[in-house]
C-alpha cells in the first residue's frame, strides 16, 4: 500500500532546531522525547507533463500535510473522508479545526513568524485572506503547471459561482490567486412563513400592504414587520419578536450585518477602493458621510424594536434564538439552513421557515443618489497555501487544494453534513436540483434560489472591504455600532468615531 519510490527525497520540515538552542534544556529535562510536533514531511517521485494522471496524483505519496481549518461542516466532512484522499494520493493530511478567530490567530502567528506549521490553511476572504495575502503563495503558477494533477473543470472564474474566485482569490494584485473557493457563507433571509401567514391580515389592516417576504421586500418593510410583531409581543400575545441583528462578540459579522444595509442603499462602500481587488492603502474611509449617518440611524431604529437580547447575540447565538422560535426573521448565512431544518434542535423546522434574498434598499433612505439593491455579502472560505513552505510542500498542498475544491467532494459534503458548494456544476446534479424543493434531503439547497440565483449576482453582491488592517477595522466598527445600539452615543457620533479611529489606523 505504501508505494515508497526508490528515489525518495526525505526532508524534514521540522528541522528540530531546538536541539541546537533550547533543546539542550529540553533534553536535559528529559522532555525531548515527548515532542510530538506538527510536522509536514515530504516524499517525492518525479513526474513529467506526459505522466499518467495517476502518477501525478501519487507523486507525493508518503508525505504528510497539516491543514488548518475552521470548524465548519466541509472541514468535518473532509476530515471524515480523508482516507479517500490518502487512497488517491498517498498523502496523509492532518485536519485541525478551530473557531475562525483562533484559526486567524494561529495561522497569523505561523505565517508571520516565517514558518509553515500550517502549509495549507483555510482562508476566510476578509479576516484571513485580506490580512495575510502577502504570505499566501500564488496559486496561478500551480494551475498552469502540467506536472500537477488538475481539476477537469479548471479553475477559471466560470467554474465557480459568480464572484467567488474574486472574493477569496483576488487580493491587491491583479492576476494573483491567493486562494481557491472551498466553502461559502452567503447571507439570505430566513423567515417564519407560518408566523407571517398567521398575522398577515392584522398587519395589512394597519400598514396597508401585505406581510410577505420576497426580493422586493425593503429594509423599511423589515422595520415595519419588526415593529408590528414587537407591539403584539408587548401586548402579551404569543408571537415571536421580529428581527435581530448580529452584534455579539464576533466583530466581523457585525461589520457584515451593517454592510448589507449600507450597500442596499446606493451601494455604499466603506472605502473609495476597488471592491474586487481591495487596497493596501485605502485612504480615508467613507464613514461620517450623509449616507452612513442615515443608515446608522435606521440601523439603530431597527435595533430598538429587535429581540431584547440583541447586543448579546452574535451570529451563532442568533441562529439559536431563531431555532428556539423567539424571532420571526433573521438574516443568516445559508449554511445555517441545515441546522434550522433539523427537527431535533429547531422549532423552526418542518416547513415553517422560508428563504428569501436579503432585503432591498428603501428608496427614501438613499442619500448618495445611488440605486437600491438587495445588498448581499459573504464569507468565501478559500484554501490558501503558505508561502513559507518549500516548493514541494506547496505543490503537495496544491494537490490537496484541488481535491478539496473538487465537484465530487463538494457534492458529497452537501449530501452528508450539509455543505455550501462553490462549484457551479454541483447544482446541476439531478438530486441537487430536486432538493431545492421540499421535502428535501439537503436542507441547504432550499436557500440556493435566493443565494446562488440572486444574491451573489451583480448588482447585489458586495465583496469588500479588502484591506490589510481589516480585523482592526472590524473591531472598531463593532465597538462603535454596539455603543450606538446601546444608546451610549448618537448615530452621528458613532459614524464620526469610526472615521476617526479607522483613519488613525491608516495613518491619515
Amino acid at each position, binding site marked *: 500500500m505504501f508505494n515508497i519510490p526508490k528515489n525518495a527525497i526525505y526532508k524534514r520540515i521540522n528541522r528540530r532546531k531546538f536541539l541546537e538552542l*533550547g533543546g539542550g*534544556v529540553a533534553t*536535559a529535562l528529559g522532555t525531548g522525547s515527548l515532542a510530538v510536533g506538527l510536522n509536514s514531511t515530504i516524499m517525492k517521485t518525479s513526474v513529467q507533463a506526459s505522466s499518467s494522471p495517476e502518477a501525478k496524483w501519487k507523486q507525493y505519496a508518503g508525505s504528510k500535510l497539516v491543514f488548518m481549518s475552521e470548524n465548519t461542516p466541509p472541514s468535518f466532512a473532509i476530515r471524515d473522508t480523508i482516507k479517500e484522499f490518502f487512497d488517491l494520493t498517498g498523502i496523509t493530511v492532518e485536519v485541525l479545526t478551530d473557531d475562525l*478567530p483562533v484559526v*486567524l*490567530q494561529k495561522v*497569523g*502567528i505561523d505565517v*508571520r513568524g*516565517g514558518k509553515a506549521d500550517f502549509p495549507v490553511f483555510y482562508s476566510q476572504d476578509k479576516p484571513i485572506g485580506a*490580512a495575510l495575502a*502577502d*504570505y499566501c503563495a500564488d496559486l496561478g503558477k500551480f494551475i498552469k503547471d502540467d506536472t500537477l494533477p488538475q481539476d477537469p473543470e479548471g479553475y477559471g472564474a466560470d467554474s465557480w459561482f459568480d464572484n467567488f474566485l474574486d472574493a477569496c482569490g483576488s487580493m491587491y494584485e491583479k492576476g494573483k490567486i491567493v486562494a481557491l473557493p472551498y466553502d461559502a457563507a452567503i447571507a439570505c433571509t430566513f423567515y417564519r412563513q407560518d408566523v407571517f401567514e398567521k398575522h398577515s391580515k392584522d398587519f395589512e389592516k394597519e400598514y396597508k400592504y401585505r406581510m410577505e417576504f420576497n426580493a422586493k421586500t425593503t429594509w423599511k418593510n423589515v422595520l415595519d414587520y419588526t415593529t408590528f410583531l414587537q407591539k403584539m409581543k408587548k401586548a402579551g400575545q404569543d408571537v415571536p419578536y421580529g428581527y435581530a441583528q448580529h*452584534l*455579539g*462578540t464576533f466583530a466581523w459579522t457585525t461589520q457584515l450585518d451593517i454592510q448589507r444595509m449600507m450597500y442596499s442603499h446606493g451601494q455604499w462602500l466603506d472605502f473609495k477602493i476597488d471592491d474586487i481587488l481591495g487596497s*493596501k492603502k485605502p485612504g480615508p474611509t467613507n464613514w461620517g458621510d450623509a449616507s452612513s449617518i442615515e443608515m446608522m440611524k435606521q440601523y439603530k431604529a431597527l435595533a430598538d424594536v429587535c*429581540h*431584547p*437580547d*440583541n*447586543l*448579546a*447575540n452574535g451570529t451563532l*447565538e442568533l441562529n*439559536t*434564538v431563531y431555532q*428556539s422560535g*423567539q424571532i420571526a426573521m433573521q438574516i443568516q448565512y445559508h449554511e445555517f439552513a441545515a441546522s434550522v431544518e433539523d427537527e431535533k434542535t429547531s422549532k423552526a423546522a418542518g416547513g415553517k421557515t422560508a428563504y428569501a434574498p436579503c432585503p432591498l434598499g428603501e428608496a427614501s433612505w438613499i442619500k448618495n443618489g445611488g440605486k437600491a439593491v438587495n445588498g448581499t455579502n459573504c464569507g468565501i472560505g478559500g484554501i490558501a497555501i503558505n508561502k513559507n513552505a518549500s516548493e514541494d510542500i506547496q505543490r503537495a498542498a496544491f494537490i490537496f487544494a484541488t481535491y478539496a475544491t473538487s465537484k465530487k467532494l463538494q457534492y458529497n459534503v452537501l449530501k452528508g453534513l450539509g455543505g455550501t458548494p462553490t462549484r457551479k456544476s454541483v447544482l446541476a446534479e439531478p438530486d441537487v436540483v430536486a432538493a431545492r424543493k421540499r421535502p428535501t434531503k439537503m436542507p441547504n439547497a432550499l436557500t440556493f434560489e435566493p443565494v446562488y440565483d440572486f444574491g451573489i449576482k451583480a448588482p447585489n453582491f458586495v465583496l469588500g472591504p479588502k484591506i*490589510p*488592517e481589516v*480585523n*482592526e477595522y472590524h*473591531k472598531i466598527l*463593532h*465597538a462603535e455600532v*454596539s*455603543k450606538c*445600539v*446601546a444608546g*451610549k452615543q448618537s448615530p452621528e457620533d458613532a459614524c464620526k468615531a469610526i472615521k476617526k479611529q479607522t483613519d488613525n489606523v491608516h495613518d491619515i
Partner: protein
Amino acid sequence: MVPTGSGSARPTTHNGEHYVDGARVIEYLPSSLNALPSSRYYLWLMAPALILLAAITLYPFFWLIWMSLQNVGAGPETEFVGFKNYIRLWADDKFWTGWVLLFKYSFFCLLFEITIGVFLAVVLNGHRFENILITIFLMPMMMAPAIAGLVWYYLFNSTFGWYHWLFQSLGILGETSIIGSTETAMAGIVIVDIWQWTPLITLITLAGMKRVPRDQLEANMVDGASAVRNFISITLPNIYPFLLIAIMLRFMDNFRFIDVIMRLTGGGPAEVTKVLPVYLFDVSFVFFKLGRGSAIALTLLIVTIIFGKLLVKVFENPASKRIDQGN
C-alpha cells in the same frame, strides 16, 4: 566564607567515637561540618532552576522592550520607530479605558468577595460543620476559568439559561440577558469571579481568625449587642494582615487571567468589559500589531511588578510574621 574545595563532604572515619554514660561523644568532627557552606555547592543547586527561569522570563522581557520600539505593520518587515508606540498609546482612548475598566472590575470583585468572604468566615468559624462546608465551598476554585466562563455563559443565556430564567422570574432582569446589556455586563463577569474566588477569601480569613485569642471571642458572645463592636476591635485587627494578602493576590490574578471575560463577553457589549488585558489580546493576536501590543504589555508588566513589590512587603510585614510565629 571559607573555601572547602569541592564543597562536598569528605569521607569521615568513625574512629574517634566513644560513649560516656550511653551518650555518644565525638572527638573528631568532619571538617565539612564546621566549614561554612560552600557557595559553589549552593550555586550548583540553584543553577538549573535559575537558568531555566531566566531563559523563559528574562529573554521575553527584553524582547518586549525591543519589540515595543518597533512598528510591525501588515507585512513581514518591521521598522524601528523609537517611542512612537508609547506616544500613540498616550492618545489611545481604548488603552486608558482598559485601565479604568480593569481597576473597576477588580474593585467590584474584591468589594463583594471581601464582604461576603469575611462574613462567611465569621459564620463558619467554629461551626459544627465547618470542615465539610468549607470543603464544599472550595469546589468552584478548582474549576478551570475557561470552563467556568462557558458554564456561566450557558447559565446567563437569555434563550435557555436557568439563571437568566431565575433573574427574570424574580424581576431582577427583563428579557435582556445580563451580559447583553451595557449596564449589567460588568456585573455578569464580576458574579463569576465572586462565585469562584470568594471561598479563597473565606479560607484566608478563617486561617487568620484561628489566631484570635479564643477567650476574647467567647467573651463577646455573652454580650451579643457588642458583638459587632468586638468584631471590629478584636477580630478585624487580627485578620487585617491576612485580608491584605488576599486583596493583593486577587488583584494580581484579575490582571493575570482573562479567560472568564473572553468566554462570557469577549470585552463587549459596546466594550464595557474590555479590560486592558483583553484589549492587549486583540492588539497582539487579532490585529498582529506586535509593536503596540508589546508597549501595552510592558505597561501592564510594570504595574504588576509594582504591585508585586507591595505584595512582598506585605508578606514580610512584621505583623503577619509575629502571628505566624506565635502559632
